[in-house]
């Protein structure tokens, strides 16, 4: 034993080794997994049991209502009345099946519904083109979606008598058609406007900056409903007496301005993430402000914020339901008016209508959120080494 400088006695250091623990009985297989993930401690076991109770309370009744006890075919309320069928009745899908055209087109004239179908197909083409990151000529896709498609859609849906497409007043539009029109107008208008506002908010010109800040903070500080009310009652006041604004156009303007403010903040986040050197590089190449923005900064910034943009589209898509409150006949409204149809007076019709709507919105929103996640991972792939 060598004599060394005496240090403080480290009494908390263990002197003798711990006896080796026995090897775990199970290290792989479902039992080991369950032991590690579900029953590792008394608390954990209690939580597992709690979760099981919740699942048992929720899933079987839901399954019974939506599928097992559900009615899938039928012509009227008798198909879904328990006293007629002599058994408990779950969801009345027969009601949805019979009203599906009403839910999709509203009161759009039957002989003109092919136009709506063409519009849906064109929209799907444009959205697909933009969302598919490896699609050929995405610049053409953007031009199509933001310029060609809106014009064509307007001519198709509203009518263009010069080429023989009869006019259909917007009061006849309804259902999913209106829901999709409102969301697409919101998207098509809010993205360019939002980019402009974001650029303005980062501008060096104080008045431009102030105007953009006030605009953005105002719209973000008030609920969408008040915006829709304002568009409905105040827009006609602000225009000269002889100009009337279409009843559908008013909430469209409100939705577009509202979502532009949110989009501006998303884009601003992207702009802030681009290093200053990029701007300086563009300047040193002799590019003007707009050239530099268009060719260097914005492509990078927008790429970063694709997930954020998709998320605000999800919010916008859900928010379109609010137009039903100011009397626009959107998908929610068609369900509300179909469920009071005396032909379908059955106890579960209300819940079925809402379940159908929930499914519709869930499929779209969940799909979009998965897409945002996918893009996020793909963008992050370049960062992970």
């Amino acid at each position: 034993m060598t004599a060394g400088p005496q240090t403080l006695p480290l009494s908390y250091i263990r002197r003798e080794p711990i006896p080796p623990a026995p090897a775990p009985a199970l290290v792989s297989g479902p039992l080991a997994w369950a032991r590690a993930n579900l029953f590792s401690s008394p608390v954990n076991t209690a939580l597992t049991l709690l979760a099981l109770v919740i699942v048992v309370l929720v899933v079987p009744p839901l399954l019974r209502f939506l599928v097992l006890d559900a009615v899938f075919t039928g012509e009227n309320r008798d198909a879904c009345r328990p006293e007629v069928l002599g058994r408990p009745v779950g969801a009345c899908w027969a009601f949805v099946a019979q009203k599906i055209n009403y839910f999709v087109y509203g009161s759009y004239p039957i002989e003109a519904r092919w136009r709506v179908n063409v519009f849906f197909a064109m929209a799907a083409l444009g959205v697909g083109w933009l969302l598919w990151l490896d699609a050929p000529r995405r610049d053409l896709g953007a031009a199509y979606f933001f310029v060609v498609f809106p014009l064509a859609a307007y001519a198709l849906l509203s009518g263009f008598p010069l080429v023989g497409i009869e006019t259909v007043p917007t009061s006849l539009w309804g259902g999913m058609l209106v829901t999709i029109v409102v969301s697409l107008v919101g998207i098509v208008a809010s993205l360019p406007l939002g980019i402009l506002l974001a650029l303005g908010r980062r501008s060096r010109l104080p008045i431009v900056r102030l105007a953009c800040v006030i605009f953005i903070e105002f719209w973000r500080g008030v609920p969408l409903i008040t915006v829709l009310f304002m568009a409905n009652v105040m827009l006609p006041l602000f225009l000269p007496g002889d100009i009337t604004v279409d009843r559908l156009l008013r909430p469209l303007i409100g939705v577009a301005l509202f979502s532009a403010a949110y989009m501006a903040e998303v884009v601003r986040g992207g702009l802030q993430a681009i290093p200053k050197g990029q701007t300086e590089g563009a300047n040193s190449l002799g590019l003007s402000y707009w050239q530099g923005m268009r060719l260097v900064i914005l492509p990078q910034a927008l790429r970063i914020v694709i997930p954020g943009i998709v998320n605000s589209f999800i919010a916008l898509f859900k928010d379109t339901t609010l137009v039903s409150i100011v009397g626009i006949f959107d998908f929610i409204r068609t369900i509300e008016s179909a469920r009071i149809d005396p032909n379908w007076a059955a106890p579960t019709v209300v819940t079925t209508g809402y379940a159908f709507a929930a499914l519709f919105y869930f499929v779209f929103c969940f799909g979009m959120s998965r897409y945002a996640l996918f893009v996020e991972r793909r963008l992050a792939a370049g960062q992970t080494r």
Partner: protein
Amino acid sequence: MPNTSPASGPPRVSPLNDPKVRGAAYQILLLLGIGLVAWMAISNAAENLRNARIASGFGFLGNTAGFDVSQALVPFAAATSTYGAAFVVGLLNTLLVAVIGIAVATVLGFLIGVARLSPNWMLAKLATVYVEVVRNIPLLLQLLFWYVAVLAALPGARDSLAFPGSVFLNQRGLYVPKPILAADAWAIPAAFGIGVAAALAYRFRARREQARTGRQAPVGLVGLALVLGLPLLAWAGLALAGLSPVTVELPVKGTFNLRGGLQLFPEFVALVLGLSIYTAAFIAEVVRSGIQAVAKGQTEAARALGLRPGPTLRLVVIPQAMRVIVPPLTSQYLNLTKNSSLAVAIGYPDLVQVFMGTVLNQTGQAVEVVAITMAVYLTISLVTATGMNLYNRRVALIER
């Protein structure tokens, strides 16, 4: 010899290309544009209002309302109350829903956010399903579902569902025991106030003591005893003296209806339920991302120092997570407050329903009513944002 060298001093640029001149020109153009639009809007509005014979101004707030409101926190009567009183009633109802909704959503959201990170597979998956389902269905649909499909499908008053503690649920709403305060009940909140002050003082002294000597005092226990014990003591004292400060009126089931108790209207129940369930899903995500943002090395370091899991969470992880959580949590609180305006869809008398709905329809004072309503929400937004920013500044990382 021809002089080819440039002149000394800064290069002369044509004023057309001078960034300063151009900037000023753009801004003047913008101002002119905004001014023009505003002037046209105002002059059109003035003319349209004149044609419609609607007097502008806020005088209508003093007129008698002539309609009734189902839920009013302050006395309100159709025959005597004014539009101004209707505004106050709506505003208070909005604030009530927002405050209760925020409290419920925060608790639920934190629980679910932590559950998503639980090592328990079952619980984590369940929380994920909750978040995904609730987040991806529009709030309006959820409110309609609770109000039309669930609450309206409840039994009538005669066979209301009874819960322990004299709570009844039926189509007309939720009936809970109603506390009735006696005149000398002020002693209890007073005792509570003294308790809070004493607890704060004790905590301050304990902190100083710990900084000086390193000895820890049982701050939590003593604080709890002071805050809860003093009011209980005051209550007991009053009760012993034969004065019952708080009596509870229980709802009683009669032959046809429930009598007594506090009735929470179905609109209110549906709105609070829908808002807090919806917002909780978003808060859960905020909490989850905040906790995940704390580097794993922090937990490991704390454990290596010998901290037990509880103190690790309380002293190391949560303070750092709060920095990430607070700003988006603020936005969620604001969203909930703004979303409470969806009350109009199910007929809960909030600010939008009472003021922008009924009052606007009766008076036609569109500009004033819309301006007041928007100003209220803007003020709530700005005040909440300022308050949360102050808190945020306190917890934010201070760097050099």
